[in-house]
């Protein structure tokens, strides 16, 4: 498992901060965000109340191809795919159905897909693109941060770029000084917003 280079939770209440560090750790792990987040700094002040999460992202450019998740074995007019990672299985089936038609695609069990009489070689099938994880990255990251953030903090401001993100939430209206706070927290990590 890849580790996050910088992971801090700053809170005006010591015990609460420690609990939130545990929560943030659990959520990022559960939502598979460790592969995405490079640095993260969370600041919570329940007295104001305000929740700020700022951080930088790793570059996720890998496009998932059939060859990444399955072993492709051609044999007498049919091509058998042994699935090693079923995360993208449904997307892969959808691509096959669109391209070859449902008559040519069969899934006899959970980890096997068989293609009959398809106009493609094993090497071509391995190169078929099935998913782009970076597309859903923003949605996943914001969802994870919403899970970490106290639930009552429903006024949110979410900023997300290719490399950096900031997430601010509060119970009350977000005012101008919030931007300065975001800048300050970025500076703690040695970054600029």
């Amino acid at each position: 498992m890849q580790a996050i280079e910088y992971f801090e939770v700053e809170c005006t209440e010591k015990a609460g901060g420690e609990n939130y560090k545990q929560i943030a750790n659990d959520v990022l792990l559960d939502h598979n965000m460790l592969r995405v987040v490079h640095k993260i700094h969370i600041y919570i002040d329940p007295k104001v109340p305000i929740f700020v999460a700022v951080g930088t992202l790793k570059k996720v450019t890998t496009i998932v191809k059939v060859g990444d998740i399955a072993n492709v074995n051609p044999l007498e007019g049919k091509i058998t795919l042994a699935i090693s990672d079923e995360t993208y299985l449904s997307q892969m089936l959808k691509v096959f159905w669109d391209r070859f038609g449902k008559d040519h695609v069969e899934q006899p069990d959970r980890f096997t897909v068989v293609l009959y009489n398809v106009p493609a070689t094993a090497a071509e099938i391995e190169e078929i693109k099935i998913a782009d994880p970076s597309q859903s990255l923003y949605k996943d990251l914001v969802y994870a941060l919403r899970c970490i953030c106290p639930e009552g903090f429903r006024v949110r401001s979410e900023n997300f770029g290719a490399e950096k993100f900031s997430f601010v939430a509060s119970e009350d209206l977000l005012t101008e000084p919030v931007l300065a706070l975001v800048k300050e927290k970025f500076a703690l990590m040695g970054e600029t917003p």
Partner: protein
Amino acid sequence: MILVPITYKGGVYRHNEIIDLIEDLGGYIVQKHMIAQEVVLQCFVPKDDVELIRAIGKPLAGEVTDSPLVGTEIAVVSMSLEIHHLPHPSCDIAEYVRRLGAKSNMIGMARGVGKRIAGINDEERDVINEHDIAVFLLGNFETCIEKKMPVLLRGIEVPVVVCGGPDKEALERIVKPRVDGYVGNVGRFMHRTKESEELEKLDEIIDEITRVLSKRREEIAKDPLSVAPARLMDIIREKVPEIQYVTSPTPLTVQMAGLRVKLPYDTYADAVRKAEIEDGITIGGIADVEPSRMRDYIIVRVKPFSETNIVV
């Protein structure tokens, strides 16, 4: 005759003998679970006969354990039903008290979250008040708990145990008005309770609930109920046979001073009121039969001896 709550766990083979024995001794079976080859009976039995049941159950691989929470209905109040509070810790705690014999209901508040915006509505308040005890599961910040508790406790009449992230001393200091029990260091968390220290925390919650409930039992004992709720359960089962067709896990939920009957109030309230206990004494005579705020159920609240001058 003092009845004590116990759980009998044993094989299916000849378990009817144990049921007969408990009934012959004057005990009541509150819940019966048949899980594969195992039978779990949650019951009230006379204190002096516990050893007898243990001895008779032994050849049948039966095990008798004390279950202080049998015959209680506990409200586990979660600040919301969002992913933030479910399934951990709310479900973990609700499930844990269930293992010890209690009937727990989870109440997710509509607007329990936050600090300034937290609130409780009349339906939530009334539903909580229909239970024997309410366990409030709060968050991690002292500031929020301090600010929201006076609002959330408005109109709550049943004993309350508060669980929150700050330690017990801090909770005792900040929760106003004062409540009956406090368990610290159990705030919001996002993982399953499986480490030994987390399970110890769950045990601590059970201890606190048991302590508060025993205090309540003592209070009830000073002015005893006109009839034991477990006995009412048997009578309703006999006199209102429609209850047999209710598919809820506990069609009749026994509480410390009452009973929840899971039948529609409009149709069956009169039948429940008119059910005779003995010598012309009816349920309506010694208990209030009222509509419950939970669905369209009936809630029976048994009156104490001081109001009725009857004990049956």
